[in-house]
């Protein structure tokens, strides 16, 4: 069953992408993008996992010798999450502007108004 974490990452990626492609609402589209991005968290953490090892936190009583899962991908995931949140905030601000200007957040409706 060791492929399941990777399968989950793939599923999140494509289900989010499907949502982006078929979206009828820009707010929904931003959320879907968040789902796509979640797949990268799962993928990063899955890659760094080492069977039987714990989190890379060596408080007193935890000998360094036992090792831990990879701390580098965990730090990368942290960066990933921060970037995800900021991108979502910026996109949602753009959605508010679009709604103010054209009164709709439906991508198809926007295209019709444009032409």
């Amino acid at each position: 069953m060791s492929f399941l974490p990777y399968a989950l990452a793939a599923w999140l990626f494509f289900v989010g992408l499907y949502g982006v492609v078929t979206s009828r609402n820009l707010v929904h589209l931003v959320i879907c993008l968040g789902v796509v991005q979640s797949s990268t968290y799962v993928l990063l953490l899955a890659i760094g996992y080492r069977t039987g090892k714990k989190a890379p936190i060596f408080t007193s009583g935890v000998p360094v010798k036992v090792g831990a899962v990879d701390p580098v991908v965990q730090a990368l995931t942290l960066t990933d999450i921060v970037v995800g949140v900021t991108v979502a905030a910026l996109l949602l601000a753009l959605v508010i502007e679009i709604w103010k200007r054209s009164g709709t957040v439906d991508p198809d409706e926007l295209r019709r108004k444009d032409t």
Partner: protein
Amino acid sequence: MTRRARLGLFAVSGAALAGLFVWALTGLPAFGDFHGEYGRILNSVAGTERHVTNVASSVVFDYRGFDTLGEEFILFTAVMGVALLLREARDDRERPRDEVRSDAVRAVGLALVGPTVVLGLYIVAHGYLTPGGGFQGGVALAAGLVLLYAAGRYRSYRAASPQGMVDFAEGVSAGGYVAVGIAALIAGSAYLENVVDLGTKGTLAAAGTIPILNATAGLEVAAAMVLLFHEFLEEVIYPE
């Protein structure tokens, strides 16, 4: 493009992408069998080299500290972008008026404000000892403030987080991270190198510059989150 054409295009290109995706996944190490030397070495040396117990934090604020500088400025720039987009075009209407009318929600919510803020401070302060850190704790801190709005009144939330102060905190913390790096340069080391006394491992006085950078990140994230809430909440119109 019609919806049907778009779906068709997605089916074809999505299938091709899925093929490449699966192909790439088969090249990855089996789950649980990762042999990245970098992470393994850091796990064994970070404790003695940097006096930290949370190795992930030492990666974020020391070994990969320069990347985190970039990350902080992504956050900073995005928040400035949101402020620029929303503040500029806002018409001068009345502030949103709202009041939570359920006593239960108000009592429980407001009782949680203090503990949430304390929890946030705790997570920030112990970021290099136990799970947590500036980024995670900063969000908890902001959540404590937003509870004031969610369970109380918008006015109390705004009073607790004056715009000028939040703007100032956002700028100072982003600048503080840069300044710590420059201080290392002045001390004759490389940019962002850990030059401060490393202290005793396992205590709050440990890890040199990591606690300082960790604190600037905590302040930066909390201020950024509060600023974002400000901007978005100002857009809301409540029916009276």
